[in-house]
């Protein structure tokens, strides 16, 4: 009966609670591994370890996009990780909520900052 699952305490199993976060943590990790490999290959095969070599890499549009995607994965990954730490160690709901908000605001700010770094003339 569907009605069994409604009550003063909601059912906390069997509804995939946490699966989304678990999976997202792993998918974002795979994106970052792929990006790390791309950076290592492009930089180490470039044989130009100067300022020109470094900025030349980031002058390519595809590289900017790949970098932003990887950084967005990083920020989402960081949010999931920090959320887990807060859930384990900050039992006070109000304080934890405040830390959630600060973390999200900071990470969204980081995402905008990254985009600005990449597309600045």
């Amino acid at each position, binding site marked *: 009966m569907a009605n069994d699952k409604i009550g003063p305490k909601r059912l906390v199993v069997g509804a995939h609670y946490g699966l989304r976060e678990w999976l997202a943590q*792993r998918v974002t*990790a*795979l994106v970052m*591994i792929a990006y*790390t490999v791309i950076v290592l290959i492009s930089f180490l095969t470039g044989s130009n370890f100067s*300022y020109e070599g*470094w*900025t030349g890499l*980031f002058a390519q549009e595809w590289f900017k996009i790949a970098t932003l995607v990887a950084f967005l994965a990083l920020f989402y990954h*960081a949010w999931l*990780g*920090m959320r887990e*730490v807060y859930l*384990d*160690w900050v039992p006070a709901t109000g304080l934890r909520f405040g830390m959630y908000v600060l973390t999200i605001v*900071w990470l969204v700010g*980081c995402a905008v*900052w*990254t985009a600005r*770094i*990449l597309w*600045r003339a």
Partner: protein
Amino acid sequence: MSERIKVSRPEFRNVSKTKDLLWKYKWKPAALVSLVHRGSGMVLFLLSPLILYFFDQSLTSEASFRHLQDLLSNWFVKLIFLVICWGYLQHFCSGIRHLVMDLHIGLDKESARGSAIRLFVVTGVLTVLIALKLFGAF
């Protein structure tokens, strides 16, 4: 039936994070990897303003690139940079270990212990190499 031999071993029920986990619990290599994975992740998060600042300075202009090089000649900045490198390496490698274990590979006690020890050796050696390069040993 033989008599049950009573061996006094520490028992942990309702493990308290602050009272048992940190002080009484014996940290095996695999548990340590888990702890260090979380620790390095937190370190990287806390250092994220600096990481993005370094990234910003390296790309903005030739002048800012030189400024970053000047900054990195300071031993304390070098140390922070080394911590970032260690955090990345450690989190990257133990993360891959976690992903492999998600595929149900190396889950038994011996392999988990072995991979944990190898992991610390690999990241340790790489970090020492970066430290030597950073502080001008080669």
